């Protein structure tokens, strides 16, 4: 088979979802008759993804038929923009890394599309949903296929946009709309840093004669600016950290993770696709793509690894006490993303990307399984009202269980291979690079234990025991019904849980299968060399990620400690899993005792460490207090004299207040409040009196004259 064909037509991969988006979107917008037929809508949407998937497979096959060094093909479409020395093409980079990402996006994306056919069957906005889903896939494919930073950024913004659209999908509900806005604002902060990093990189390269935004050229010439410093900081470290701040926004890492759990307000397939399998991994992909920058900036890597490890543990402990099944999975996602960053930050880029892939399988499976449960329970998300679902929903149960074993990291499921590889590399880095990595490894192991525990807790609460046996634990005020996924359908006659339709169980089964076997693609050398099975995955990515520093490859001798660690982590996972099972089935008294004994600790985890409240108390309240002070000041001054000079004085004091607070507190809500206060003060200078306006002009001239003459 001549696979060159797929390379020539690689642009079909992003184009197909775009066309699907346009057909369904225009139909929805103009209310054309064909979108009334659900069959037409989902055939178009799923067909587009299937087509993309076929081409992605074709590209993959073609690349694998080439020599490893030749596996990087740029498909140029047209010159997208050219200003001065800045030139960016609309061009696609087809290489091992992007092909893996393409396969994940189109493959998992296709399954989730199929799943949505069943899940969204009764939703009045059926076509709108598929429209957004297709648009998302288009943007995500642009992100991973673009051959330059600018296209990556366009995709980056595009997936964000779709995410807000889909979170606020049922925008009639205020909470959803607000969750959308929260995600929007938090991501803006990240994007701001990302843009700065991008510009900094570009202009530094420009100074050294190699102005370019394409990955290939940056990769070739980035060595030139290795020793350049800006304000005492190596420029590449700054670039790395700035770009990483962008990644913490998009990939929900501490401290910008706060939007992701709220984002679960969207429909469950969306949570599965966007907020678990694909979009949130954009930050990982970006670091993988720019690995040559990070390799030259070890300090930035330490930051990445530290943030990743802290997030991994931090989010896992929050997961202990959540009762909403989707919230558990949300914090689990945050935690798993932390592992990926730990892997990236260790320089084990292939391991991080590998975990990205296995995570896409099992987390998508888990999310879709939870969607199936929610649907079966008639839009109930509170696990305390569930229980015993094993017998009502067998397929959902088995797939969910397999994915749980995978995420817990139990041999030989996929999660074991990827997570263990990351932890091993971190441990190894503790010896090679800095002993700080031992600490990070410890955090990671603790997080892994937590992961196994809360996942089995979730399985136990949902599927074992008796239906509704725990319902009395739900405090009365929380006993609202289906607050998120409620899209008003289903005749509410029959309240027995039921298995989900075929389209949904099909997707679940495929994903469960992948969660089980996906790990064999990347068998660590330590295990593989017995059977002469290489680590396919690492070899595949090697042409892209071969800048990994001194401790990749090698592998000629396996230190016994590696086996020890493997056994250790599996043992830990098994123990934690068993505890999670035990505490929430046979010995339910134990967690209760624990809660009774350490009420504060439990409350801490239950309330997500009060992070939202801390944000509120530390930042918002303080600033409100400042605002009150300013308002009081304002009233006095205004009463005193409504005139131009008064306004100027006020503006000045506001500006000073603004600066103080920025440097003292400097966080989202607060700055926004102060900017608003500044605006209000400046607004008062617009008195409506023309002579004041002219006075300001005269004053402006005089001040500027003095500024220059003195």
């Amino acid at each position, binding site marked *: 088979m001549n696979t060159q064909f797929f390379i020539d037509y690689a642009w079909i991969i992003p184009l197909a979802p775009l066309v699907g988006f346009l057909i369904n979107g225009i139909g929805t*917008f*103009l*209310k054309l008759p064909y979108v009334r037929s659900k069959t037409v809508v989902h055939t178009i949407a799923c067909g587009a993804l299937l087509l993309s998937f076929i081409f992605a497979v074709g590209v993959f096959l073609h690349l694998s038929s080439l020599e490893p060094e030749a596996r990087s093909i740029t498909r140029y479409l*047209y*010159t*997208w*923009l*050219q*200003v*001065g*020395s*800045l030139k960016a093409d609309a061009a696609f980079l087809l290489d091992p890394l992007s092909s893996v990402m393409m396969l994940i996006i189109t493959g998992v994306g296709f399954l989730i599309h199929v799943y949505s056919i069943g899940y969204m069957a009764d939703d009045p906005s059926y076509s709108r949903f598929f429209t957004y889903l297709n648009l998302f896939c288009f943007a995500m494919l642009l992100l991973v296929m673009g051959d330059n930073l600018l296209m990556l*950024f*366009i995709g980056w*913004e*595009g997936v964000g946009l779709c995410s807000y659209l889909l979170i*606020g999908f049922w*925008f009639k509900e*205020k909470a959803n*709309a607000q969750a959308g*806005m929260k995600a*929007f*604002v938090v991501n*803006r*902060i990240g994007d*701001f840093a990302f*843009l*700065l990093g991008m*510009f900094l990189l*570009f*202009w530094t390269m*420009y100074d050294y004669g190699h102005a370019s935004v394409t990955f290939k050229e940056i990769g070739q010439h980035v060595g030139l600016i290795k020793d350049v410093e800006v304000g005492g900081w190596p420029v590449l470290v700054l670039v790395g950290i700035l770009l990483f701040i962008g990644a913490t926004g998009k990939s929900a890492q501490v401290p910008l993770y706060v939007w992701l759990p709220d984002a679960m307000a969207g429909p469950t397939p969306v949570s599965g696709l966007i907020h678990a399998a694909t979009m949130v991994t954009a930050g990982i992909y970006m670091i993988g793509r720019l690995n040559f920058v990070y390799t030259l900036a070890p300090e930035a890597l330490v930051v990445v690894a530290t943030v990743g490890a802290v997030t991994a543990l931090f989010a896992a402990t929050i997961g202990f006490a959540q009762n909403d099944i989707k919230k558990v999975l949300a914090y689990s996602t945050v935690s798993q993303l932390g592992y990926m960053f730990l892997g990236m930050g260790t320089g084990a880029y292939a391991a991080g990307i590998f975990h990205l892939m296995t995570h896409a399988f099992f987390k998508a499976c888990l999310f879709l399984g939870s969607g199936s449960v929610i649907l079966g329970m008639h839009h109930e998300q509170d696990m305390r009202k569930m229980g015993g679902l094993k017998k009502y929903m067998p397929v959902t149960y088995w797939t969910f269980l397999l994915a749980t074993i995978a995420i817990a990291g139990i041999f030989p499921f996929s999660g074991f291979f990827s997570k263990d590889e990351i932890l091993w590399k971190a441990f190894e880095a503790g010896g090679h690079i800095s002993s700080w990595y031992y600490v990070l490894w410890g955090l990671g192991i603790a997080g892994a234990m937590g992961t196994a525990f809360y996942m089995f807790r979730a399985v136990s609460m949902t599927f074992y025991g008796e239906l509704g046996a725990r319902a009395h634990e739900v405090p009365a005020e929380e006993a609202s019904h289906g607050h998120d996924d409620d899209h008003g359908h289903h005749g509410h006659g029959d309240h027995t849980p039921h298995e989900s339709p075929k389209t949904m169980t099909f997707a679940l089964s495929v994903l469960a299968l992948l969660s089980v076997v996906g790990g064999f693609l990347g068998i660590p050398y330590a295990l593989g060399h017995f059977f002469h099975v290489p680590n396919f995955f690492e070899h595949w990515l090697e042409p892209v990620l071969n800048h990994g520093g001194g401790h990749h490859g090698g592998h000629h001798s396996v230190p016994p400690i590696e086996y020890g660690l493997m056994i250790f982590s599996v043992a830990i996972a098994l123990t934690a899993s068993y505890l999670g099972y035990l505490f929430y089935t046979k010995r339910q008294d134990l967690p209760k005792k624990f809660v009774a004994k350490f009420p504060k600790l439990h409350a801490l985890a239950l309330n997500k460490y009060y992070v939202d409240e801390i944000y509120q108390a530390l930042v918002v309240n303080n600033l409100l207090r400042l605002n009150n002070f300013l308002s009081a000041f304002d009233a006095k001054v205004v009463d005193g004299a409504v005139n131009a000079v008064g306004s100027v004085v006020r503006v000045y004091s506001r500006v000073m207040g603004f600066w103080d607070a920025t440097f003292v507190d400097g966080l989202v809500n607060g700055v*926004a409040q102060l*900017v*608003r206060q*500044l*605006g*209000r003060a*400046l*607004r008062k*200078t*617009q008195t*409506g009196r*023309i002579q*004041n*306006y*002219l006075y*300001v*002009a005269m*004053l*402006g*001239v005089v001040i*500027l*004259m003095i500024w*220059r*003459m003195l």
Partner: protein
Amino acid sequence: MMQVLNNQESLWYFLPELALVATFVLIFILDLLPSIKNQKRALPIVAAIGVVFFLGLSVYVQQFPQALLFHGMIVGDSFTDFFRLFAGVSTLFALYFSVKSKELAKVKAEYWALILGIALGLPILAASNNLLMIYLSLELVSILSYVVVGSIYGSRASSEAALKYVLYGATASGIMIYGLSLLFGVSGTLDAIQIKAFLLSHPMERLPLFIGLLMTMAGFGYKVSMVPFHMWAPDVYQGAPTPVTSYLSVGPKAAGFAILLRFVYTALTTHNGADFEPIKSVDISGLMSVFAVATMTLGNVVAMWQKDTKRMLAYSSIAHAGYMLMAVAALNQQAIEGILFYLSAYLVMNFGAFGVAQAVMQESGTQDLESFKGLAKRGSKGSLAALAMTVFLISLTGLPPTIGFVGKFVLFSAVLEAKLYVLAVIGVLNSVVSLYYYARIIKYMYFDDPLSEDKFSFGSRSYPVLITFLALATLALGLFWEPLSVVVKNSAHLLS
């Protein structure tokens, strides 16, 4: 040294403007014919045809070699050609929106003629090479604008806007010519090119140059609504008829930037490869940076507090002037290209935003921002209006994939190339701030309940078509902007 043409030779270059003058006069003549006078649409159509002729001739005269025209009074270069097209296109939009405006339902022939008079002033202002021409064409644009701002009979807001505009404009142009007289005083010539020649051959201290420039900036700054010469803008924008507001925020503002660029680059800088160096120690860059920071910050933070649609757009317009001033401070070739590009982007997105705003305000009968509430839920026209407005607002914020993003990108590139990092950071921060007030309208349109149950209507069949066209242009130019960037690149060469 470039060619200096005498009056007769220059006439060929001046054909487009002559067409405008002819239409200007023709409207008064036609107005005397009773059959035309009773036809409400006749005169705007004549005016539009005149502008189309103007545009056609503008393209035609581009073939002539670049030269100084009318003994060096104005410059016929590609920069001028660009602003001819710019003025023509923006005038066409202004004419269209005026026809569709209920506020302007009773206007007479002179309104259409005066719009053409303003249109005539724009390219001449952009082409002026002589201090006298700068003053004259600036006043041509200004004085006629005062009249059209006050053209709603019996409206307190309209007359108040006209009063503030005329008082502010007269003073600002007075300060400007005082500044220009200082430049004349040190150089002994009114010709911008010769001023530079003189300054190059006679090194002199910076003070009179600086003060002359500063006072001149009062005139230019008032046209582009630059802080601290911006204060007329919110009031005038709010009180003026909506089509006039949108026109003022695009046409005269662009012409203001044109002359600002031409004056600074011709008279006060020397060409040094790709870069421009300010003459002697006149710190143009520092001065413009101060203006830019003040302008964009003030525009954005005050816009957050506005409840009136037009007033909000006025502050937004001030903020956008700030972004462009940032590029003026950059003093390089890219900055000229960036500003021309951004102006084009601004033309599309701003007319779009004002167009939707005008329809919404006319439909609801108020200028209150809350009349946007629930727009998306009010029938198909309502969702079209909301969607288009969202596109314009995203573009004004500067997010991809719109032309506003590309425009900002080009501007910031110029600023960074000049190594004005702090300025760029402040600019990006300002963009973030602007998100708040633009997003608020999106929230109103999509998340809030409508104030009225009626289906939304544009009140005209062609109106939604034009809005859709502008929205598509905003998106399309955000993805395929090569053609525009080629035009801009070719136009960004100032003859000097």
